[in-house]
């Protein structure tokens, strides 16, 4: 690992502006780091030539004192974002070899601001998973290890390539997406910062759809400031996504370092689950103490429908997925298996093209939407979603500015350790994050400590709609107070 990969995104930006190094040097350092770290399997496709071409173009701009907010900064892109001319697979066999003829709006925004693409990052297939073990291209390995163990640790999911690459310094920051926790849980597992912005803040256009009423794009980065810088470029109104919001994008970086004095922080009693591990409970208490010391006011609140969020999610998300994934039919793009007639072609293509977890979720979704079951499952789940949202509305109406919770019920686990017998065991990873998607709110995860076995732990801040700035201010307060989390020496090459 060379020195230039040790920089934060903000430091690299300032270094380029001050001409201490060039984007080509910065990019080459990352290209080399990526090539050495293949054992982590974080990238599905590396694009070193494209990266260096983009870096050269950035250097030309920077030399003239021009350039955008991300000029010359090398990033990784989750392989759920369509990138023109570069294979985009959603980590599925059914899309293997698919080369988009168009660019997603969020990545278009990043290139507009001068960012450099290092490649496409691994993920759980169609973003369905919490450990990056469902990828057709193999699991991602976290750069973290337990004390005195070389067991392969999962980087979380679904944005496991993004979290591992950011943690291992294989990019300055990465795009990710979050439907039930897919930005925040991997960030917590790898000691990185991730924010799922308010639903509608980023355009979903050109991002492979999972559950459209829940999906949001966001960044994973190594610091709160870096995440704020990235989100400003990613966010914005887009005529191609009717759910994207036509509201100005604030300069989020301005909020980093702002005082949190007098902010009211809600502590929801329903998040103190039966059997919560002592170290997660202690971490949460520590977070409360840090925010109090920074001048925030702490208030216990109640979000009574919390425990229904995860089961309701496992109706709404598969239902929407079964509809969205109907497009993979073997006709217009992707894998095709021949059959004796058109229906046989569809059934064989989809059976072979989709992995186990994806097939399972499509089946659940098809079942809950099928005639006679729609009201009992889907309609009921959407009503419960209204109740979950109302809980948050009431808390915010009572004067709460943000809510502090643990990010995950446990630290990262080893490959193969969870969910092999019962899929629900894996789903429980998202118990603290999924409520945020169900209510469309912004949620930020920031590293806050270490588990007894030496793995990172994170805290989550949940905000009011479109008040990401408050989260960046509070997140930085925790970042400043928390002990520095130090990654083990690079063992991956």
């Amino acid at each position, binding site marked *: 690992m060379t020195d230039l990969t040790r920089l934060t995104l903000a430091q690299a930006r300032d270094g380029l502006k001050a001409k201490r190094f060039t984007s080509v040097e910065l990019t080459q350092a990352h290209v080399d780091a990526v090539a050495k770290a293949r054992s982590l399997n974080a990238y599905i496709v590396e694009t070193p030539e494209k990266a260096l071409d983009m870096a050269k173009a950035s250097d030309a701009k920077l030399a003239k004192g021009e350039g955008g907010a991300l000029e010359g900064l090398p990033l990784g892109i989750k392989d759920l974002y369509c990138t023109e001319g570069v294979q985009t697979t959603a980590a599925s066999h059914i899309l293997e070899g698919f080369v988009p003829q168009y660019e997603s709006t969020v990545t278009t925004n990043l290139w507009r601001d001068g960012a450099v693409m290092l490649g496409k990052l691994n993920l759980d297939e169609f973003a369905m998973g919490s450990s990056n073990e469902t990828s057709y291209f193999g699991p991602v390995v976290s750069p973290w290890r337990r004390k005195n163990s070389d067991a392969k640790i999962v980087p979380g999911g679904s944005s496991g390539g993004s979290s591992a690459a950011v943690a291992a310094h294989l990019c300055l920051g990465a795009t990710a997406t979050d439907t039930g926790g897919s930005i925040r849980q991997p960030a917590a597992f790898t000691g990185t910062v991730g924010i799922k912005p308010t639903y509608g803040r980023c355009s979903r256009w050109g991002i492979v759809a999972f559950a459209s009423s829940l999906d949001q794009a966001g960044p994973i980065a190594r610091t709160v400031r870096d995440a704020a810088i990235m989100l400003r470029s990613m966010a914005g109104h887009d005529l191609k996504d009717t759910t994207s919001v036509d509201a100005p994008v604030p300069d989020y970086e301005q909020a980093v370092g702002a005082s949190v004095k007098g902010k009211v922080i809600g502590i929801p009693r329903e998040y103190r689950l039966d059997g919560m591990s002592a170290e997660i409970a202690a971490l949460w208490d520590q977070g409360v103490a840090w925010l109090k010391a920074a001048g925030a006011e702490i208030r216990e609140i109640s979000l009574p429908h919390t425990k229904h969020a995860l089961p309701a999610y496992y109706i709404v998300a598969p239902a929407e997925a079964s509809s969205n994934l109907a497009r993979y039919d073997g*006709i217009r793009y992707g894998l095709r298996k021949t059959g004796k007639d058109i229906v046989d072609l569809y059934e064989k293509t989809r059976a072979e093209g989709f992995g186990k977890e994806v097939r399972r979720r499509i089946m659940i979704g098809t079942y809950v939407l099928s005639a006679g079951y729609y009201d009992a499952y889907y309609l009921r789940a959407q009503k419960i979603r209204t109740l979950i949202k109302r809980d948050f509305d009431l808390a915010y109406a009572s004067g709460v500015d943000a809510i502090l919770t643990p990010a995950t019920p446990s630290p990262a686990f080893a490959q193969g350790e969870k969910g092999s017998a019962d899929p629900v065991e894996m789903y429980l990873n998202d118990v603290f994050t999924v409520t945020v998607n169900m209510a*469309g709110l912004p949620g930020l995860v920031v590293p806050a400590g270490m588990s007894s076995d030496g793995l990172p732990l994170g805290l989550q801040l949940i905000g009011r709609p479109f008040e990401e700035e408050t989260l960046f201010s509070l997140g930085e307060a925790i970042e400043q107070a928390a002990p520095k989390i130090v990654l083990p020496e690079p063992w991956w090459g």
Partner: protein
Amino acid sequence: MSVDLATVRRIAHLARISVSEDEAPHLQNELNAILGFVEELNSVDVDGVEPMTSVLPMRMKKRVDEITDGYIQQKVLANAPAREDGFFVVPKVIE
């Protein structure tokens, strides 16, 4: 509620996913585990609650109904597994 093997096969057909004889019982167990997990939702009182249609109060944006795109036949066909003379090729669907 739980599903039997016949229902698993029916759902698989609706979802256009072929399921082998060996796979069906495993899938049945997994689906029933998930359906068991969501069963607690029946205990929630949802009388008079409106189902959510949008997480944020937003009006559906509309644009002028005019052509904004087109003449991209080659792009549309670029990833097709089988194409001929500017068309997608499919198995015969009309008897």
